């Protein structure tokens, strides 16, 4: 009896000790609700097999809610998250503030040199990689091959804006609710201004000159806005000033758009036969240009970053390294097929012959490579960012200017009026913020 007691005591101690040795570290990951992120949540068994001592809790939120939530937390060192999903807009701003843990010591097999230079450039602050890209996107032209053929036109691989206008005119068939072109019109720095800022680069426009003076009173911006309004008023769908990504996606999937210039991620939606009525009639081309050396496409990536001050840095790094590794891309390919691999982060993915068979792979890579966040405009500019300006004030500025341009599209203001208001507003705000001396 005595012996069995002793044995039980020993067993209990052994169990307790092994429990302590196996102590789980739970990390909290804040993320956006997009297909790639949700997919990862279903593939976590592979991570747990490799790291049985780490448990991952997910907090999934809508993009704008997430942005506000994680910004508050990182700025106040609230410590609620160990890994945050952040965009290319926040990354350089937060990196400069010292809010993020540098990721220079990722394992050798992570192969940091495999990251696409355009994406990596936007995530490097003072030579430190401050976030790891999970998925990257640019924008491109998606068009209806059948309507293009019917119009007797052939879409070049790298179209000009003049061709886009010509094609939009030829494809428009308003009585049958077919509109030549669908573009974003809904006001917001990440909505119409993402599109218009990127478009303006190809017209030689820029947000600010080297002295941070707003440039809306210059000819290139007038050209951009006039061209956009002309295109949308003549060949766009009605009520376009309310259309964002989702509204245009819905129109395109229902066969109501001849062309749509938007995020490369849309390619997998419009070619998905379960949701799109035009899945087998979609072609892709680079975003248009005006022969000035810059195309009208943007560059965005969702990245995983570790807030400075987390108590679980090691576990967080292990997770970030796994989620953005080549190994993870291969895992998605094996379980869900190549078309579902998170695109736009690694060169090796695009060198893979299997991935090259995906219809939009080549165009996505070329679009990403055609955008340089450090040299976004034709002229030199003092900021980083293609479709945004990576300064904290931009969210407010972009949304206000977006409302002025959206009003011009809705017909309640003219192009000149909107540009004058944008110039006055931006000048006041930039002076107040201390950029303009």
């Amino acid at each position, binding site marked *: 009896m005595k012996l069995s007691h002793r044995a039980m005591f020993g067993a209990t101690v052994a169990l307790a000790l092994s429990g302590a040795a196996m102590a789980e570290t739970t990390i909290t990951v804040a993320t956006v609700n997009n297909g790639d992120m949700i997919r990862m949540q279903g593939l976590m068994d592979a991570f747990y097999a490799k790291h049985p001592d780490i448990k991952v809790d997910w907090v999934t939120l809508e993009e*704008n809610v997430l942005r506000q939530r994680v910004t508050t937390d990182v700025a106040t060192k*609230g410590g609620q998250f160990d890994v945050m999903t952040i965009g290319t807009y926040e990354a350089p701003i937060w990196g400069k503030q010292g809010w993020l843990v540098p990721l220079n010591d990722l394992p050798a097999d992570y192969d940091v040199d495999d990251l696409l230079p355009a994406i990596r450039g936007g995530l490097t602050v003072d030579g430190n990689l401050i976030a790891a890209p999970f998925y990257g996107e640019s924008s491109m032209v998606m068009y209806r091959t059948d309507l293009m053929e019917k119009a007797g036109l052939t879409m070049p691989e790298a179209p000009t804006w003049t061709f886009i206008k010509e094609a939009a005119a030829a494809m428009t068939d308003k009585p049958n609710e077919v509109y030549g072109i669908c573009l974003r019109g809904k006001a917001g720095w990440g909505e119409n201004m993402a599109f218009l800022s990127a478009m303006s680069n190809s017209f030689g426009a820029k947000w600010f000159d080297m002295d941070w003076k707003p440039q809306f009173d210059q000819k290139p911006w007038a050209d951009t806005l006039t061209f956009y309004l002309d295109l949308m008023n003549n060949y766009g769908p009605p009520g376009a000033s309310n259309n964002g*990504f989702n509204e245009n996606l819905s129109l395109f999937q229902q066969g109501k758009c001849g062309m749509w210039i938007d*995020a490369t991620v849309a390619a997998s939606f419009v070619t998905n036969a379960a949701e799109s009525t035009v899945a087998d009639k979609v072609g892709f081309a680079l975003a248009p240009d005006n022969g000035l050396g810059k195309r009208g496409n943007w560059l965005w990536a969702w990245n995983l970053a570790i807030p400075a001050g987390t108590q679980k840095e090691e576990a967080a790094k292990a997770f970030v390294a796994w989620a953005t590794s080549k190994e993870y891309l291969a895992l998605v390919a094996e379980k869900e097929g190549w078309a579902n691999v998170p695109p736009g982060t690694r060169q090796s993915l695009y060198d893979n012959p299997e991935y090259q068979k995906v219809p939009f792979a080549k165009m996505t890579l070329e679009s990403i490579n055609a955008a340089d966040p450090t040299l976004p405009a034709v002229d030199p500019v003092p900021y980083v960012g293609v479709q945004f300006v990576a300064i904290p004030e931009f969210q407010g500025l972009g949304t206000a200017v977006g409302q002025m341009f959206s009003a011009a599209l809705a017909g309640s203001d003219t192009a000149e009026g909107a540009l004058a208001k944008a110039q006055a507003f931006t000048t006041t705000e930039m002076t107040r913020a201390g950029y303009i001396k």
Partner: protein
Amino acid sequence: MARNTSPARKWVVTVAAWTIGFLIFFPILWIIILSFKTEGDAIKSPLAVLSSGWTMESYHVVQERSNYFLHFMNSVIISLGSTVLALVIAIPAAWSMAFVPGKRTKDLLMWMLSTKMMPAVGVLVPLYLLFRDFGLLDSRIGLVGVLTLINLPIVVWMLYTYFKEIPGEILEAARMDGASLRNEILYVLTPMAVPGIASTMLLNIILAWNEAFWTLQLTTKNAAPLTQFIASYSSPEGLFYAKLSAASTMAIAPILILGWFSQKQLVRGLTFGAVK
């Protein structure tokens, strides 16, 4: 005496009332309809949506992906907790303002209401820092406290209005019969004000249930209520309307059912004192 109305007029009024009721309810109805469609069908034109097949697919996906029960329980605890706490504070406060008003009672009431006029985001950072330092981030207790304070002005105002309708003489009579202050509030005032208190309670539960700023900003995973559950299904890039509708339906169903069963009480409370 009832007013004479012609059958035609009655008919028109009935139709108009039903039409307005239907229009107000329509967005909710449409959410419920979309929740039973596939993602592909959910974005079709309205007529095509109605004629397409029905499926529970979205509910399965939502059940699989999220811990609905945790969010639901958090919503219940937070909304009930903050309501009870607010009533405990507001009933004595409203009593004193209604029956023993001071020189500054009106100003005090206005000041209380004025705190509702400040945009919530203005105090986000200070409050977040307080929560961080007191270890209240992502806790139900913290949220109960915040929602109590947010809704307290409305609760005090509503109760004050109801209490004003109760003749002070009845309370005086109770006092003359030797009732203590506690007994006066508990056994004389409260039973008479039950409809008012009930409707204040219901309204406060609904407000707390739907509160979508603080409940999103101050929670992470353990205390996150249904507002976060909905926010995790919304996306600016990607059409997940069916799943979002399913999540929304699951989030509003409990409060909708509560409202449905208590509507008589709610209406009675809201019109309490309207006729003298």
